[in-house]
C-alpha cells in the first residue's frame, strides 16, 4: 500500500468542490445548448456549411443528416428472429522484460440467435506473434500502438467472417463491434505503409459486409465526444467569431458532451443521425463507408451507435440496428449482452497469461534455451509463479 490516503484527503475535498462547480455550470449551459438544438432543428443545410468550414473542421464538428435534429426516434419492432454477431479482442503487449519477446491477440466472437431459444455459439481465436516480421516490422521493435491496431483489425475480421458465415437467406444479421466503427490510426507510431495496409484491410471487411447485405454497427459506451455541441456552438456564433475559437474548452460549453445534450431521450429512443466530424472519416467516405452515428438511450445510459453510410441511408437496416442494439441492452443493464460475452471470451486473464508463459518457458527449455537467457526480471517473476504453483 503506497497510496497514502491521508495525504490525498485535502485534494479529494477540493476535487469534490470543483466537480460540483462544473456540474452547476453545465446545468446552466445545458438548457442553452438544447435551445440551440431546437433552433437549428431543421436548418441542416446551414449546419452542413458550418461543419465543412475551416473552424468546423478544426473543432471536428459533426454534420447533420436529413432528419429533424430535436426529435426522439422510437425503436421499430425487432423481427421475431434476428442473428446478432459480436466480436471483441484482447492482447498481450510485447514486453522487453518478459520471458520472451512476443505478443498475442485473442479474439472472441458470439453468434446470438435472438428468438430461437438456443444457446449462442461462441468461439475464440488466439494468435501468438513471434516471427521476425511481426516483432520487427520495418526494422524497429513492434509498438503497443501497432498491436492495438492489429487487434482492432482482428476484431473487424472476426466480425465480418462470423457474420458472413451466417446464411443470407436466414434471419437478418446484425454485426456489432465493441467501440467506434471509425478507427483512427496514428501514422507516426506505425511503421512505413503499415497504417495504409491496416486501414485498407479494415475497409475491405466493411466492403464485404455491405456486399453480403449484413447490418453493421459499433457500440460506444459512455461517449465523451461533443461533436454536436461543437457544431451548435459554432453555428450560433457570428462568422468572424467562429474563426477565433481554437477549442471548445475555451468556451462556456467546455465539459458539455453530446451525451448530456441528448439526455432527454427516453429508453429505447435514438437521436437524429449525424456524420462523424473526424478527418479520418474521409478515408471511409472515399470507400462509401462514411460513418454516421446516433445517440441511444439504452435503458440506463446514453450510448453512441455508429453505422456506415449504407446502413444510415437504408431505413430498414438503420431501424434493425437501432432495435437490435436496444434489445441487447434492455436485458443486460444497458449494455449489449453479446458485447459482454464477446469481451469475456476474448479477455486474457492474468492466470491464463501465466499458464501461457509457463508453456512457452517449457518449450524454450525443450529447445535448448537455458535460463540465463531470460531476463533477470523475468526470472524473479518466474520464481514467484513457481511458488504459487506448488
Amino acid at each position, binding site marked *: 500500500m503506497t497510496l497514502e490516503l491521508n495525504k490525498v484527503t485535502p485534494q479529494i475535498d477540493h476535487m469534490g468542490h470543483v466537480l460540483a462547480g462544473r456540474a452547476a455550470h453545465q446545468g446552466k449551459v445545458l438548457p442553452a445548448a438544447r435551445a440551440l438544438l431546437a433552433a437549428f432543428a431543421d436548418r441542416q443545410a446551414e449546419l452542413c456549411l458550418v461543419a465543412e468550414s475551416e473552424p468546423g473542421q478544426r473543432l471536428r464538428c459533426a454534420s447533420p443528416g436529413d432528419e429533424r435534429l430535436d426529435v426522439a426516434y422510437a425503436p421499430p419492432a425487432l423481427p421475431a428472429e434476428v442473428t446478432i454477431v459480436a466480436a471483441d479482442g484482447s492482447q498481450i503487449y510485447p514486453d522487453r522484460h518478459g520471458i520472451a519477446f512476443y505478443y498475442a491477440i485473442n479474439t472472441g466472437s458470439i453468434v*446470438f*440467435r*435472438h428468438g*430461437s*431459444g*438456443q*444457446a*449462442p455459439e*461462441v468461439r475464440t481465436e488466439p494468435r501468438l506473434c513471434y516471427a521476425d516480421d511481426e516483432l520487427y516490422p520495418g526494422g524497429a521493435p513492434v509498438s503497443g500502438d501497432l498491436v492495438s491496431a492489429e487487434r482492432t483489425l482482428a476484431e473487424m475480421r472476426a466480425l465480418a467472417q462470423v457474420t458472413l458465415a451466417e446464411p443470407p437467406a436466414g434471419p437478418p444479421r446484425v454485426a456489432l463491434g465493441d467501440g467506434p466503427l471509425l478507427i483512427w490510426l496514428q501514422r507516426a507510431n506505425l511503421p512505413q505503409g503499415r497504417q495504409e495496409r491496416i486501414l485498407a484491410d479494415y475497409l475491405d471487411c466493411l466492403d464485404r459486409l455491405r456486399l453480403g447485405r449484413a447490418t453493421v454497427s459499433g457500440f460506444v459506451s459512455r461517449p465523451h465526444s461533443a461533436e454536436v455541441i461543437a457544431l451548435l456552438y459554432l453555428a450560433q456564433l457570428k462568422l468572424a467569431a467562429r474563426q477565433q475559437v481554437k477549442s471548445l474548452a475555451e468556451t462556456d460549453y467546455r465539459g458539455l458532451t453530446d451525451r448530456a445534450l441528448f439526455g432527454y431521450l427516453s429508453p429505447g429512443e435514438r437521436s437524429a443521425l449525424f456524420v462523424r466530424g473526424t478527418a479520418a472519416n474521409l478515408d471511409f467516405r472515399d470507400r462509401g463507408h462514411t460513418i454516421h452515428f446516433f445517440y441511444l438511450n439504452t435503458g440506463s445510459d446514453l450510448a453512441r451507435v455508429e453505422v456506415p453510410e449504407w446502413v444510415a441511408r437504408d431505413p430498414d437496416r438503420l431501424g434493425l440496428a437501432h432495435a437490435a442494439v436496444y434489445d441487447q441492452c*434492455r*436485458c*443486460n*443493464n444497458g449494455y449489449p*449482452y453479446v458485447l*459482454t*460475452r464477446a469481451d*469475456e471470451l476474448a479477455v486474457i486473464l492474468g492466470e491464463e497469461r501465466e499458464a501461457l508463459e509457463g508453456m512457452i518457458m517449457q518449450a524454450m527449455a525443450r529447445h535448448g534455451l537455458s535460463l540465463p537467457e531470460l531476463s533477470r526480471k523475468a526470472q524473479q517473476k518466474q520464481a514467484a509463479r513457481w511458488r504459487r504453483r506448488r
Partner: protein
Amino acid sequence: MEIQVGRIIRSSTTRFAVGCRVLRPEVPVFGSLVKVPVLDDEVYGLIYDVCMEDDPYVRQIAVQEEVRAEHIEDQRRNRQVPIEVGVLVVGYRRGGTIVHRLPPQPPTSLDVLYTCTGEGLVEFTRRFDYFRLVLDNRDLPADELLAANLRYAAEARSDGQAFLVDAGRELARLLNMDLVRLDGLLRRLRDWA
C-alpha cells in the same frame, strides 16, 4: 451400465473434484457411488457435492426483470463450465478385492469418473466398513450422504429392506455415543425403508 460422469480436475487422497459439462438426469447424483480406474486399481467414492460457481455476471442476470431463454442457455452451456462434482473417497479395489480404506494413490487429473450401479454397487456395499470414512467428515452433510447412498444400495437389491436394517445396526454400533445423530440418520433410512 456405466455412465461417464466427467474428468478429474483436482484430486487428493481423501477427496477429489470432477468437472462435467451439463447436468443430466442420471448424473451427477448426490450420494451415488462412483469409481475411477487408476492404473490397475479402481478408486471408489461418493458424490457429496455438485457445485455451480457463481460470478458477478450471473448474479446480475439473475436479478434482471426479464431473462431471455438465449441468455439462460448461454450461461448454462457456454459459461458455467465445468460443473464441479465433489467426490469423497471411500475405498478402492486392488485385484479382485474391494477395500474400504483410503487408496495408496489418488486418481490423477483428467482421469475419467464413471457411475457405479447395479452389481458394482451391491458388491461394494456388501460390507459397511466405509461408513466411518463417510461419518467422520463433519464438514460435509455426511449423514445425508450416507443415507442417500444406502437408499441406492437398497434399491439395487431384491432384499433392500433387510439390507437397510443391517446397515442401521452397523450405524447403531458406530454412533452409540451420539444417539441424537443416530436417531436422525435412522429416520432418514426409515423414510425410505
